[in-house]
């Protein structure tokens, strides 16, 4: 049987996982903000800049859903590697959605930071 501490740690992990999953769509839209990218580039960008590691099999269906919803568009571009790559870019609606989500995220994290400021002080 797991001890109390183990169970608490597990609950913390679970919460973090939920939090990360909830941010996936915003993270992908955010990764496309500066310009078009192909699937693997998006994955690598998320890995390097957000330590939000998505399983590879998930990002492609997710991109195709965002495309079906009109938030991104795609185009095939020839590459030096010898095979074409499918690039994604934000549409006007995608930019609006990203801005809106980033705004909500910003307000939320600012207010959470304020609320949690005493905890951060105590830690020091």
């Amino acid at each position, binding site marked *: 049987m797991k001890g109390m501490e183990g169970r608490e740690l597990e609950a913390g992990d679970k919460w973090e996982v939920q939090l990360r999953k909830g941010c996936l769509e915003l993270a992908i839209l955010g990764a496309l903000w500066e310009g078009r990218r192909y699937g693997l580039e998006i994955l690598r960008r998320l890995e390097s800049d957000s330590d939000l590691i998505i399983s590879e*099999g998930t990002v492609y*269906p997710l991109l195709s859903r965002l495309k079906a919803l009109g938030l991104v568009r795609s185009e095939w571009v020839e590459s030096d590697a010898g095979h074409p790559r499918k690039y994604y870019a934000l549409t006007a609606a995608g930019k609006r959605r990203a801005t809106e989500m980033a705004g909500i995220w910003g307000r939320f994290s600012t207010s959470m930071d304020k609320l949690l400021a005493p905890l951060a002080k105590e830690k020091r």
Partner: protein
Amino acid sequence: MTSTGEPGQRIDAYLGRLRGMLRGIRDEEVREIVEELRSHILDKASTSGEVTAAGVDAALAGLGSPEELASQYMTDNLLARAEISRSPVQILKSLFRWGSLSLGGFFVLLASVLGYFIGAVFILVAVLKPFHPHTAGLWSFPGGSGEHELSFRLGFGNVPAGGKDVLGWWIVPIGWMAGGGLVMLTTSIALWFVRQYRRSLALPRG
């Protein structure tokens, strides 16, 4: 584009299986999905210059099994459609395809069929009541050991002896509200399960 050599055959075999499972998605889209994944696999497998069998295996492992991947495409397709139209017919159609790929999907399908069916019966009885005022409705019949059995009657044929129309004309508003509510509830619950399923696969395991 087809790939050559042994690693190429593995890629083709994987993509071939996936293609076979992507039912209900437009042909053109399926072609794009397959080509995009091929491009991903080749990129992943050739980081050190050459495409190797080990590199291909690692890339395929990263994508998960064709069943799992197809299942993710189907559920994402369903979620995208559901955001545009909440038609039970569309949702059931997509659930049928998902249900054939995953056990979880199969149970969601069964529950949804049941929910929509009962909802449809409520609505049907409400619709038919004005046409069969004396026979349609929710009827109660005396059962074996003094208990009563409830059953919906659409109003075709005669009512067996001893029956009692429980709700009378109230079946019209109640049928519409309960039926409509049940259909909407079924849709929401089904979509909730689809989202949970999608999220459960979003981050790498372990």
